[in-house]
């Protein structure tokens, strides 16, 4: 069997609600799926010393991120009984209120889908070489820190 090829997860700008709807809709032909779990990261307009975050500008070390994502994907597929797994992460500017991360897992039963989605989100945040620059309304910025 040929190994799965690393898939691109990066999209330019925000993930739209209609893109999410299309992804969900595509799974209606998979009659072995009983549950989908979705996580969406949304850009918050945090206030820092009187300034407000208006957008996050994302960059990545793409080749490394895709290799790492491939490794995470294989590990999650090995650990949970999933039918599908999809991950999309924004690059470039994503305005406050827009979606920057879309993680989507499906399974015959709810528990693997939910557990896999949650673990994927944690691993993506901790292990993918992606950086967010929080751009303020006055054009200054600070580098985002994940907690």
């Amino acid at each position, binding site marked *: 069997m040929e190994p799965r090829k690393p898939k691109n997860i990066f999209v330019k700008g925000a993930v739209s609600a209609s893109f999410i709807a299309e992804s969900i809709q595509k799974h209606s032909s998979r009659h072995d799926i009983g549950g989908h779990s979705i996580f969406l990261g949304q850009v918050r307009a945090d206030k820092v010393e009187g300034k407000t975050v208006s957008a996050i500008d994302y*960059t990545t*070390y793409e080749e490394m991120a895709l*290799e790492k994502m491939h490794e995470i994907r294989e590990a999650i597929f090995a650990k949970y009984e999933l039918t599908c797994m999809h991950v999309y992460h924004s690059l470039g500017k994503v305005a406050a209120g827009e979606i920057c991360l879309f993680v989507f897992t499906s399974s015959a039963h709810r528990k693997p889908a939910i557990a896999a989605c949650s673990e994927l989100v944690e691993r993506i*945040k901790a292990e993918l*070489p992606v950086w967010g620059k929080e751009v303020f309304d006055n054009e200054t910025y600070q*580098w985002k*820190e994940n907690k």
Partner: protein
Amino acid sequence: MSSFKKNIIVFGQLTDIIGAAEINFPAVGDTDALKNQLIAKYPQLAELSFVIAVDKKIAAGNTPLQLDSGIALLPPFSGG
């Protein structure tokens, strides 16, 4: 001699400190030596936690560098 210099790619807030997304830096034998020389040239790096990726893998402990190793400097990740 240029063959003893290496391109290093730089990400995130490290680009603010180093002032570029890519630098040409004298080749050294391992990642500890590289880290020391980088801090000597860019003292602000000492205040920041960052890791060195060698051929797209994070160097765990001191890692020997080959002349053809792909080197990248990665500050803490903040995706999602």
